[in-house]
């Protein structure tokens, strides 16, 4: 009774995650509970075995070419070149391309961008019920939402940009339901992805930007679905994430 120790703390002890006070509590506990002490010794032995088996990989010479990802360099160069050419074209044609990329205030356009901005505004401030199904249950979440909106969905991984999936919910669109996914970073900033089937009168579109108050939205339509990414951040910051989402969806 004297030193209640949780199962998690036994692992944290093995992995050096405890402060000195809890470490001592665990040590006192282990001294009196030989069976727990044996388990802890076993857990620690697995960590040691991993090092003994795999540390030698650190000393192996790198395969030729691994330190120089040529394809990626080429890719980056080609993108920059394409962007430079596009700029030239825009300049030459009076910049029509730049103009269509910004729709302006979405409040005047009851389209996917405004729906997404509204959903973002309604649910992201929620502390207790931001989503219907949590991200831990990702497979169920995706299957359910795919079924309801009638097209296979994917949850993009945004961990590379520091965001993890909080979860999702079903939200209304004008004639059919839409899927809504929420992501959050360590600072508590939330961004949302809204997706629904494309309506018959809608065309495929490239990336576009709108805003509603301080909520920015990047949106586009592909073969089957329309997508909108909403967040409260600068346009450039949101664009980075929206591009990552699109790459994840297309990849």
């Amino acid at each position, binding site marked *: *009774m004297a*030193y*209640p*120790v*949780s*199962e*998690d703390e*036994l*692992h*944290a002890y093995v*992995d050096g*995650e405890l402060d000195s006070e809890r470490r001592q509590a665990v040590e006192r506990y282990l001294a009196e*509970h030989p069976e*727990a002490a044996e*388990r802890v010794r*076993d*857990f620690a*032995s*697995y*960590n040691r*075995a*991993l*090092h*003994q*088996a*795999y*540390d*030698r*990989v*650190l*000393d*192996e010479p*790198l*395969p030729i070419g*691994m*330190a120089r*990802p040529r*394809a*990626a*360099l080429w*890719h*980056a160069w080609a993108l920059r070149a394409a962007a430079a050419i596009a700029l030239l074209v825009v300049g030459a044609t009076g910049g029509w391309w730049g103009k269509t990329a910004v729709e302006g205030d979405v409040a005047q356009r009851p389209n996917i961008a405004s729906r997404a901005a509204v959903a973002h505004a309604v649910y992201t401030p929620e502390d207790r019920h931001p989503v219907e199904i949590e*991200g*831990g249950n990702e497979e169920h979440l995706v299957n359910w939402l795919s079924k309801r909106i009638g097209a296979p969905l994917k949850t993009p*991984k*945004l*961990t*590379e*940009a*520091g965001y*993890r*999936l909080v979860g999702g919910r079903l939200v209304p669109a004008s004639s059919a339901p839409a899927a809504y996914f929420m992501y959050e970073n*360590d600072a508590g900033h939330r961004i949302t992805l809204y997706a629904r089937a494309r309506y018959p009168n809608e065309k495929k579109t490239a990336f576009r930007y709108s805003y509603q108050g301080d909520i920015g939205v990047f949106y586009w339509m592909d073969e089957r679905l329309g997508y909108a990414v909403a967040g409260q951040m600068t346009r450039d910051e949101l664009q*980075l994430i929206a591009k*990552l989402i699109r790459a994840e969806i297309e*990849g």
Partner: protein
Amino acid sequence: MEKQQLIIEQIPKLRRYARALTGNAALADDLVQDCLERAWSRFHLWQPGSNIRAWMFTIMHNCYANFVRKNKHQPSLVTIEDWGGDAQVAPNQENAAELRDVIAAIRQLPAEQREVLLLVGLEELTYAEAAKVLGIPLGTVMSRLSRGREKLRAILTHRPLIAGVRQVGD
């Protein structure tokens, strides 16, 4: 140059992790290569000053998850020839037999438990870093780690796994 250096410094540990994750040297290096290509093309997503190692492992996890997903319906592609009796353990190594048993047992774990066990036990990421890398809550890291290690014990001691034991306190 600086960017190149930052990424290159991570390669040995990424290779170690991938080797342990897949149990196959060629497959592991393919994964590392994928991961590096992705790191190059997405370097703008990395926030300078934040932990580059955790970021690279995040990418590695995503590459691995894609690999697993793509090969889900083609088990022959993920058959790993040297699972179990593999070359990581030198025959003259002290306690070689025990080591081989542990490695073989780790390979029997579900991928999600193996990932946590390797990130924490081999790569020595903190629990918080592992949660970030995997995009899961801290509590899920803990439960996967705990289940993974209990399962290893069950395999290695040939004891049935007792489910549902959480609190060992009082």
